[in-house]
């Protein structure tokens, strides 16, 4: 009988007998946190240390002092870059927040036509490299862009009716391309907000518009605030758009000012770059802390949510066509125009006024790309970094997430803040900092000429993003499932291995795909790490653009878009959520 068969063995697990101390102290947990701390603090520490020196840190005659700060503060270009950064950041907030919020409301609550296919399209700009978008605008809407010339011919104008190189154009383009970021947060807030609170207002006698203004808007305000601060922060960080679009008229922002410092003095002015970097972090870090605070208060608001019933779509009447046209126009402007421009430019021999399109078509640019070994290497490296590097990054993020999983202690809090630090460092700075790490730390020099260096930098730069992906998967795991494993005798580490990780398997695969796309899109982090052997498409684009090789830029950009598109297609095919 059952009772007799089971009485023969002891109830305790086999591994019983370890000392208490050992079972409580989790070696791997400490190691994971320690390695992450080094990967985060070494580069940033190096930047801060370098900014207090009078020469590059490897120079023999360096001295401590604040000369670097004195120099940049005396440079009028620095101040104009700071002013431009501020103007662009504010412009982005003013454009992206209302538009993104309205778009979220239209998508989540109304009968806007075509919502089903709009949903994935809205998020696409997030995954297209801003650098590629910027090239797209130049070749599509620049002074001799495709669309500029067509519009000129169509309207019989003598001049293009716009100028995409002005500061305000940059702000508008940056604002419109960041609408998806706001959309993401406000739409998830709207979805979490039970429709019953809105229905209650309707029943009490409020019109749909009043419901939107008096109930929905105030209840999603914390999320909108969060998105606003996020966009402001991204505004200080942007590099690709002002690098390409700001160049013709000489508009610098903080990140491009830093990038151009090398050219300015003609010598490695690491101490000056470090000083600019510290100034930039001094702006972004408080914004990251603010975001964190806002996210918490937003979460508190969501906790008061009502019952989530399926909301009835609000009929817009004839306004729905008006709204649809605006949304459609936005999609055309942020996606169709730049991407079609790049695609077209990659297959024409030359382009200008009076050139008949049919005669200029060619595939030579692609042939040239594949004839240059460093470009082929860049493509191969990009794929390796995306597929294998992305997978490895997900493993790292998972290890770190598990170290903080369901434990409220000092280590978890430390991880929380640890993740914030690289978030505040713009990619181009992070790349620079890692370059210094590889130069500075003995034994790491060899890494510089391989893609491992780029992979490490990418993984650290996207730490916060990756952690968010993994933790949103982990949140889905009911705590009892893990507790049940502990009760039947599995240790913490074993529970993670055999219960938690198998349960979030699909979440991890989805994260891998998203990290792949993000790594394909990334460009600024690789700029300073560019060396023979460590080329990736993103950094090669920056370097080719600087050399004026627009044909190659267009072809390589299209290849980059193609790689991201493969990721997107797989994601959409398998129903991966493009956001958490």
């Amino acid at each position, binding site marked *: *009988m*059952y*009772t007799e*068969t*089971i*009485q023969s*063995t*002891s*109830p*305790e*697990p*086999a591994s*019983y007998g370890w000392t*208490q101390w050992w*079972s*409580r102290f989790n070696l791997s947990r400490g190691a994971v946190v320690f390695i992450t701390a080094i990967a985060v603090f070494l580069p940033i520490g190096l930047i801060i240390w370098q900014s207090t020196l009078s020469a590059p840190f490897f120079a023999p005659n360096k001295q401590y002092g604040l000369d670097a700060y004195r120099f940049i503060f005396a440079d009028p270009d620095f101040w104009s870059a700071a002013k431009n950064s501020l103007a662009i950041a504010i412009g982005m907030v003013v454009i992206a927040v209302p538009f993104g919020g309205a778009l979220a409301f239209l998508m989540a609550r109304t009968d806007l036509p075509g919502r089903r296919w709009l949903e994935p399209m809205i998020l696409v700009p997030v995954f297209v490299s801003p650098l590629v978008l910027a090239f797209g605008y130049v070749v599509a809407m620049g002074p001799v862009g495709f669309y500029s010339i067509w519009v000129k011919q169509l309207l019989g104008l003598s001049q293009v009716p716009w100028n995409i190189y002005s500061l305000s154009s940059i702000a508008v383009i940056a604002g419109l391309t960041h609408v998806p970021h706001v959309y993401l947060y406000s739409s998830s807030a709207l979805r979490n907000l039970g429709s019953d609170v809105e229905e209650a207002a309707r029943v009490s006698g409020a019109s749909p518009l009043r419901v939107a203004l008096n109930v929905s808007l105030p209840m999603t305000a914390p999320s909108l605030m969060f998105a606003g601060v996020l966009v402001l922060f991204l505004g200080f960080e942007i590099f690709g758009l002002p690098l390409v679009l700001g160049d013709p008229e000489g508009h610098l922002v903080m990140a491009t000012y830093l990038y151009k410092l090398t050219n300015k003095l003609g010598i490695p002015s690491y101490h000056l770059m470090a000083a600019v970097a510290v100034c930039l972090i001094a702006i972004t870090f408080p914004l990251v802390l603010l975001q964190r605070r806002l996210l918490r208060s937003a979460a508190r608001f969501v906790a008061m949510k009502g019952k989530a019933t399926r909301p009835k779509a609000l009929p817009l009447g004839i306004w729905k066509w008006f709204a649809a046209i605006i949304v459609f126009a936005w999609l055309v402007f942020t996606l169709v125009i730049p991407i079609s421009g790049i695609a077209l430019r990659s297959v024409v021999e030359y382009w200008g006024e009076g050139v008949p399109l049919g005669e200029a078509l060619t595939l030579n640019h692609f042939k040239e790309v594949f004839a240059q070994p460093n470009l082929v290497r860049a493509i191969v490296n990009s794929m390796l970094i995306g597929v294998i590097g992305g997978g490895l990054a997900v493993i790292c993020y998972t290890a770190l997430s598990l170290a903080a999983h369901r434990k409220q202690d000092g280590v978890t809090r430390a991880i929380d803040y640890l993740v914030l630090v690289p978030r505040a460092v713009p990619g181009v700075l992070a790349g620079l900092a890692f370059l210094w790490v590889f130069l500075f730390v003995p034994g790491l020099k060899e890494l510089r000429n391989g893609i491992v260096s780029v992979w490490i930098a990418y993984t650290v730069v996207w730490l916060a993003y990756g952690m968010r992906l993994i933790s949103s998967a982990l949140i889905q795991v*009911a705590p*009892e*499932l893990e*507790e*049940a*494993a*502990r*009760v*039947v*005798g*599995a*240790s*913490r580490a*074993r529970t993670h291995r*055999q*219960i938690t990780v*198998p*349960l979030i*398997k699909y979440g991890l695969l989805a994260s891998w795909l998203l990290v792949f796309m993000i790594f394909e899109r990334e460009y600024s982090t690789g700029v300073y790490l560019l060396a023979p052997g460590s080329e990736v498409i993103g950094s090669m684009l920056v370097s080719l653009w600087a050399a004026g090789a627009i044909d190659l830029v267009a072809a390589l950009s299209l290849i980059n878009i193609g790689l991201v598109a493969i990721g997107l297609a797989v994601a959409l095919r398998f129903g991966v959520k493009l956001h958490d």
Partner: protein
Amino acid sequence: MTKLIVNDLHLQYGDNPILKGVSFELQPGEVVALLGASGSGKTTLLRAVAGLESPHQGCISIGGQSLYDAARGIDLPVEKRGLGLVFQSYALWPHKTVFDNVAYGLTLRGTSKQEIDDRVLAALKSLDLVHLAERFPNQLSGGQQQRVAIARALVYNPPVILLDEPLSNLDAKLREEARAWLRELIVTLKLSALCVTHDQTEAMAMADRILLLKNGRIEQEGRPEEMYGAPSTLYTAEFMGNNNRLQGRVTELRDGRALLEGPGWRCWGAVRGSLKMGDAAVGLIRLERVRLADGDGENRIAASLVTSMYLGDRWEYLFKPGENRLRAYGEHAIPANTPAWLELPVNDLWLFPSDG
């Protein structure tokens, strides 16, 4: 055999004390129910025994071995305690089959493949689950999931099995059948079980002994019939059954009985707790003890019927004499506004000091 001893257990979340010194013993082969309202700390107590919550004072031991002892700095991790726990939500692992769910605890103990097969099958057989062994949890009904959860907790023969609201996830109809089945299982397998529930009927049906918790302390403990038939506090009396409550003042005391007086009525009752002349007191009587009488007399209250409700096996009447509301059971429908007398037998009307 092994005895579970919990002694003076304290636990708090931040500054919020949840358990304020709980002590009890679970004898081998005994079923103890932890009963209480939500927030009484009953689930926390169960989880603390399992090792899923961290107390800060007191001790827990089983068969002489310390699981937790604040004074000696012992706190055995969950997985080393070797207990069985059936979760309220069952917490079956969705990525493992029924067989693998049950087998996991044995795998962790390094049991041989053959023995795992034998023991898991034996466990599944005793719970009538063999035909479901290859299914995944999402393919099972609620009742089947519950049986898998129990099999998983029993298969490695834990000295004590902990059950967290084992019946609350079942439909009302199924629940009473499952209650009888679970009691039968515990008795035939001679298990020692600690069972959390908020339902006093469930606690009385399942357990040999009940611990009633209130605000992190044990309010009263005893056999089900003691708890129901001889509660020592007003809280226990109110918690354990369906009651009528009369608020009044003590005007006479004699041989352990007292006269409770309110506006327009006076009844003798049995004193429980300490009462003095003139004290505010609460009279409590179980619904089934109230009798309908056909005329005035001692311990009778005149009232007219407000409404009667049909419950299937009987009728429930609602009376409103003066300020009070009194309910009683009967066999027939009575028309509204029928004048009646309610008799409250002296020994069934318990008088407690007023709870303010």
